[in-house]
């Protein structure tokens, strides 16, 4: 041991303290950065003196994955809920005054009123207007659904772009992790960055990963498609500019494999939720509206009164394929958007609303009224038919043998049930996400107070080293004085 050695050691100590201070300050700076993992310097004693052997990055692999999965499902449920909210508000919700169910109720009331005073042209006009409202509700609903699908399509496009961009970023981060690991440098920053990107990726799509040599990470989707291996795989999606009923949305392809939106409502990741909303929720709702439209057209069908055996034909409501009725018990795709008021009834189109009372829009054979301005039987019959069970397509995912009015409210029940499920799932997953994020933050985050107290320690250590240097200096000075 010599004074120079002592000086050298003190010098190294200063270096180490400076390094540790920089770690502390990095920790403090990033205290509120959720993607930052706490660093700590691992010291190793070294002859002579001390050195920072390694910078250790706090990690909690299990929690990190839990958080990733929770965040993935939360993101999905959040989007699902938002989508369902939109549909409930714009098409068919409990509070939606323009929903087909409400409009159908109004039509029933108007029919009842008309049946009480069949001779009144005003009331006939009122019933016709209720019919118009109903048609408008279906037409609008159908249009809204298709707009919604178009929006979802755009969202998918954006999500796919995001995903591709994130994967490209991931490649860069992954490379720097590999490089740092291979050369034994501190990979913390690269790891932070990579984990942050991974978090964002898993918001879009649930992933699982495994690591190879030098911490080279491979990402696959939950169903096994490769997302990233050495370099990003193509996530491709062709958007559809405009949707109409019956136009199927295009799939998102990941490495050539179409993305499935998840089974039994276990949707995870934004991308899957958009696909589920576009291809399942919206189309089912469209089918339901189509079935409501079919039910209404069928309920108001006119029958041959002569016994001549002519087929029943479309009455108050008709459609693109009118005057024939749409085939029974099966969905005619797009019916809700093509349903219209039969011009024969429509006073605006030169028709006669009183045909509703008398029948005969399809010719004399279909006239039901034997004569009489107060003939109400047909009107009452229409009312009955609206509440009589008919066969519905099981594809609508509702009861198959109920009345069209019940069907229309069951449709509201369906969407609200989906909303409720999504809401509850959102609640659970968000709680899980928050809990895991908190736990993860506790495992890997920074506590400023701890860092500050560490800083105090370092301050003391620094002071002590400086004092040592001063002492050696003084000793040297004393020595020099004697020369």
């Amino acid at each position, binding site marked *: 041991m010599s004074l120079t050695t002592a000086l050298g050691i003190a010098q190294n100590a200063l270096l180490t303290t400076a390094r540790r201070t920089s770690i502390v300050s990095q920790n403090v700076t990033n205290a509120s950065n959720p993607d930052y993992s706490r660093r700590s310097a691992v010291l190793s004693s070294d002859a002579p003196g001390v050195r920072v052997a390694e910078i250790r990055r706090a990690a909690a692999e299990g929690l990190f994955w839990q958080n990733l999965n929770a965040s993935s499902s939360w993101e999905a449920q959040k989007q699902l809920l938002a989508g369902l909210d939109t549909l409930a508000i714009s098409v068919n919700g409990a509070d939606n005054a323009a929903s087909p169910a409400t409009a159908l109720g109004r039509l029933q009331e108007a029919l009842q009123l008309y049946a*009480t005073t069949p001779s009144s042209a005003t009331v006939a006009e009122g019933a016709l207007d209720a019919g118009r409202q109903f048609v408008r509700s279906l037409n609008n609903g159908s249009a809204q659904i298709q707009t919604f699908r178009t929006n979802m399509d755009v969202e998918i496009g954006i999500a796919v772009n995001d995903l591709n961009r994130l994967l490209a970023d991931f490649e860069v981060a992954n490379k720097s992790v590999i490089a740092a690991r291979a050369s034994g440098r501190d990979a913390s920053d690269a790891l932070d960055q990579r984990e942050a990107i991974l978090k964002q990726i898993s918001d879009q799509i649930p992933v699982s990963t495994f690591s190879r040599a030098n911490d080279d990470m491979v990402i696959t989707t939950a169903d096994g498609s490769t997302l990233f291996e050495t370099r990003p795989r193509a996530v491709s999606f062709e958007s559809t500019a405009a949707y109409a009923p019956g136009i199927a949305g295009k799939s998102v392809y990941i490495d050539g494999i179409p993305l499935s939106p998840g089974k039994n409502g276990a949707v995870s990741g934004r991308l899957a939720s958009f696909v589920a909303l576009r291809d399942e929720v919206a189309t089912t709702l469209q089918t339901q509206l189509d079935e409501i439209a079919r039910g209404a057209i069928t309920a108001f069908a006119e029958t041959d009164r002569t016994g001549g055996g002519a087929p029943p034909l479309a009455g108050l409501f008709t459609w693109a394929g009118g005057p024939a009725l749409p085939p029974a018990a099966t969905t005619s795709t797009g019916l809700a958007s093509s349903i219209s008021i039969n011009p024969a009834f429509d006073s605006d189109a030169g028709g006669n609303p009183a045909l509703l009372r008398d029948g005969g829009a399809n010719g004399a054979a279909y006239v039901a009224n034997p004569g009489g*301005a107060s003939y109400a039987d047909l009107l009452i019959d229409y009312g009955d038919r609206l509440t009589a069970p008919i066969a519905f397509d099981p594809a609508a995912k509702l009861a198959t043998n109920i009345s069209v009015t019940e069907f229309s409210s*069951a449709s509201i029940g369906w969407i609200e049930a989906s909303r409720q499920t999504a809401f509850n799932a959102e609640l659970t997953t968000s709680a899980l996400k928050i809990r895991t994020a908190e736990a993860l933050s506790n495992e890997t985050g920074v506590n400023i107070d701890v860092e500050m107290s560490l800083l105090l320690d370092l301050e003391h250590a620094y002071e002590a080293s400086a004092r040592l240097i001063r002492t050696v200096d003084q000793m040297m000075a004393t020595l020099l004085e004697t020369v």
Partner: protein
Amino acid sequence: MKVSYVSSQAISQALRHSLLRMQSELVSGQKEAQSGKVADVGLALGIRTGQAVSLARDVGRLQTIVDSNTLVASRLAATQDSLSRISEAGSTFLSALTAAISGDSDPATTRQAGRVMGEALTGIVNSSFNGEHLFAGVNTDVRPLADYRADPPSAAKTAFDAAFLAHFGFAQSDPAAVAIDGPAITAFLDGPAAAEFLGAGWETNWSNATDRGISTRISLNETVETSVSANIDGIRKLAMAAAIVDDLFSSALNEGALEAVAKTASHLVTEAMGDIAQVQAATGFTEQRIENASERLSMQVDIFNGFLNDMQGVDPFEAATRVNALITQIETSYALTARIQQLSLTRLLS
């Protein structure tokens, strides 16, 4: 003792999420306290929302039926009133006829009574309510009866004259009519004349009304006929009595024949009175049914509303209490956040 690490971010985030939830609950709690309904029916009921919508729609529908029943009830009341007036007119006519049979009155007076009866009947039967002819069956936009004494002669008059001519070979006003005795005229009245009124001739020449009345749905699955047609026997018989008295008392018939006419008319009026009373009873019965139906429907509406309330309603007091509790909680959490934010070593170091 296990000392676990807590990150600064976890500390600062801890209350934030619960605060957000509490705030959104506060908003819905406020809404609930004010409206007495759950803030978001769809979320609260889920699949049962369909049921709630059905119920609400049924309530609306039932209410409409109750409203329309009021309308129908007032029409039936008007019908009742008209029938009573017909009945009254009938009684007056009957007393005139009784006088005529007993020979106490002048044929002209009797004839006048007949004419008054006929006009009153036509007037009452043609009365309309709310733009609809009460006795027109479903054919409410047409007057059920034409004026018998119109000029040019009504179809009814022409047909009666033709029937007379066909039966006797001369018109009523022909001097030869003096020769017609009581039995002969009775035979005419019971035969061709009756066919004019009580048979097919009525609908051809007299009435524009349809036999079928207006059907009305008075409850969800109850349909009743809520009008009285001018084709009911009572009106036919009264019309016949009035017509034959009016017509034959002004003709050249002898006294015996006139007495027979009066007798027949009196019979008819008596029968008609009975018929009308029956119709009145039936109408009354219908009115009763409507009243019952409305009552039932109102009850149903109440029950449905109760159901709806059970499904969607919240106790406003409970909601208000919840809002208060939430406010306290949020305030506490604000205070806590402020305190926690102060709890920092940095503050003590400087």
